[in-house]
């Protein structure tokens, strides 16, 4: 059977679903092809017994009505189809020397807490946040402007000067403009695990948007889990004549004389299309298209790109309410930081050595936000740490099982120390390793954030481009600009459509 589509999407992650919804609403004929039996990629749910877990979402920044980030949700047509639940506290940072709770939309309260621990830094902290907010405004001006994309690019140095000024420095370098206090800089980047790099290596251009968006507009979960968002996007696509084909991997991207001709899918065979937008890793795109269609220089540049780190998450379903284990109703995310610098921790993480005293980890009290995902009287939580791909992918299945169990036990032991008695209440325990991440999304080495967000690989000009050298072939999602994250991938959709479609 042969079809005609304007655009075919490879993979149904958030990047693809968001762009397909934007294009379908503009009257384009779209097809989204997904290997898995559910849409969403990392933005999906799974069930164990009576518990439903969100695969990935810890915190969605800024999606409050009237906020900048919510504009993307509106543009995709799902504003009235999904409900966002705000987190009563953004996070709590727990280290030996410092314990700070950041409230919902309470930058002033956060600053006051910082003043208590760093009294001599008061002025610096004030200046740092004032400038970070101005920078956020510049970024929003650029991202959400109604002007054509090229016009925004030309106007950037004049109208949005900070985007260029700070875009190419690290988070640490940016903070250093205001303070020399190393400890303060680490505390300010408490959420570094969301970006997959220590502040000293992480691009400020990528970090700066969610940094302020979380503080000023809050952190959110999606009622019913992120599957609800993915499903809502599918509904919009279908309501506008588009199609989502599940359980049907794209087996080949077909080109003819340097331009896209279509794809071959498992279910439909050859499908003709004018454009193909890939939501999978660029390495996989090249493999599906055939290396011979790319210049050697392009391929070697691609091979030089560094992958982001992977992660390990333990999902626990408990037979009692969280309050029984001493967890307050206001608690949501707790970051536990050992007395090591982020860079020292990252060395351990990359080597796959996880140790309660060497690497940071976090707890998410999931059911405190959405009790509808667990049975009445029960609860759920997640334990998370970054981990390098190290040998996860090469182990035999038996060794792999042992390693996975060992890390699961280590995280539960950690949690047991802050929630005594936890173990006796575990009814469901499931772990997601780098190998699991690869299985579900085909992302190489279980990378959870696409390419690493170093200054060399970040920003409008340095990020892996949305346009391939093959005519009609594009990239969307975590691998390209701006990068990973719920808002990151949905923004990448918006930029793609604004710029090229």
């Amino acid at each position: 059977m042969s079809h005609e589509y304007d655009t075919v999407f490879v993979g149904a992650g958030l990047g693809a679903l968001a762009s397909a919804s934007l294009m379908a609403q503009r009257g384009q004929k779209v097809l989204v092809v997904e290997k898995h039996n559910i849409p969403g990629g990392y933005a999906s749910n799974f069930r164990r017994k009576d518990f439903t877990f969100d695969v990935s979402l810890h915190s969605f920044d800024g999606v409050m009505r009237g906020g900048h980030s919510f504009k993307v949700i509106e543009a995709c047509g799902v504003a009235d189809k999904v409900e966002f639940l705000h987190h009563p506290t953004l996070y709590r940072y727990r280290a030996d020397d410092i314990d700070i709770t950041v409230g919902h939309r309470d930058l002033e309260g956060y600053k006051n807490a910082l003043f208590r621990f760093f009294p001599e830094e008061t002025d610096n902290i004030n200046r740092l946040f004032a400038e970070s907010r101005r920078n956020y405004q510049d970024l929003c001006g650029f991202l959400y402007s109604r002007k054509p994309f090229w016009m925004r690019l030309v106007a950037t140095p004049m109208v949005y000067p900070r985007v260029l000024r700070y875009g190419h420095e690290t988070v640490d370098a940016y903070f250093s403009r205001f303070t020399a206090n190393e400890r303060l800089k680490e505390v300010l980047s408490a959420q570094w695990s969301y970006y997959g790099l220590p502040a000293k290596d992480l691009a400020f251009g990528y970090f700066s948007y969610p940094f302020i968006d979380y503080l000023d507009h809050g952190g959110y979960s999606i009622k019913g889990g992120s599957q609800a968002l993915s499903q809502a996007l599918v509904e919009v696509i279908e309501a506008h004549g588009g199609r989502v084909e599940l359980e049907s991997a794209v087996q080949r991207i077909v080109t003819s004389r340097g331009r896209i001709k279509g794809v071959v899918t498992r279910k439909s065979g050859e499908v003709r299309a004018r454009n193909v937008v890939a939501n999978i890793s660029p390495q996989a795109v090249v493999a599906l298209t055939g290396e011979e269609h790319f210049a050697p220089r392009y391929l070697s540049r691609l091979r030089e790109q560094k992958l982001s780190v992977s992660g390990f998450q333990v999902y626990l379903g408990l037979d009692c309410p969280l309050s029984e284990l001493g967890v307050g109703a206001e608690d949501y995310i707790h970051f536990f930081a050992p007395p090591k610098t982020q860079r020292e921790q990252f060395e351990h993480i990359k080597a796959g050595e996880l140790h309660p005293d060497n690497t940071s980890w976090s707890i998410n009290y999931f059911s405190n936000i959405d009790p509808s995902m667990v049975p009445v009287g029960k609860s759920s939580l997640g334990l998370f740490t970054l981990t390098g791909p190290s040998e996860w992918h090469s182990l035999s299945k038996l060794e792999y099982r042992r390693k996975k169990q060992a890390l699961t036990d280590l995280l539960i032991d950690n949690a047991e120390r802050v929630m005594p008695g936890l173990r006796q209440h575990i009814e469901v325990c499931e772990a997601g390793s780098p190998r699991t991440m690869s299985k579900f999304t085909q992302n190489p080495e279980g990378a959870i954030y696409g390419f690493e967000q170093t200054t060399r690989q970040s920003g409008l000009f340095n990020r892996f481009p949305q346009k391939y050298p093959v005519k009609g072939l594009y990239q969307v999602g975590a691998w390209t600009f701006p990068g990973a994250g719920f808002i990151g991938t949905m923004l990448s959709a918006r930029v793609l459509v604004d710029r090229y479609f």
Partner: protein
Amino acid sequence: MTYVVTDNCIRCRHTNCVDICPADAFHLGPNFIVINPQECVDCGLCLPECPEAAITPENQLDDSNRHFLDLNATLAEHWPVILQRIPALEDHPQWSGVPNKLPHLIHEADPVDPVRDTHLAHA
């Protein structure tokens, strides 16, 4: 719900489906493989891996193949768990796509040798 291996697998048994399963739900027989419904977590990852299109979600079985649901459950109790992919049966090309192979099914499991059979889990 569970996923179910059906007729197409018999005498082919590529075992392409095994490595991807996060739940170690596959059990190996001499010329067929089955999914243990107690272990399967319905992730659906195995379905596209099978070159014979032998795997079906329970809710998509019809009258012609519904009996495979019970067959999977029963055989899973007798056959060892397979953890790692092994080569397909030698004469599989001959049997690929041949309909109604159930009469060829060998129920009796091969004896497990703990030294040789490293692809199997030993209870």
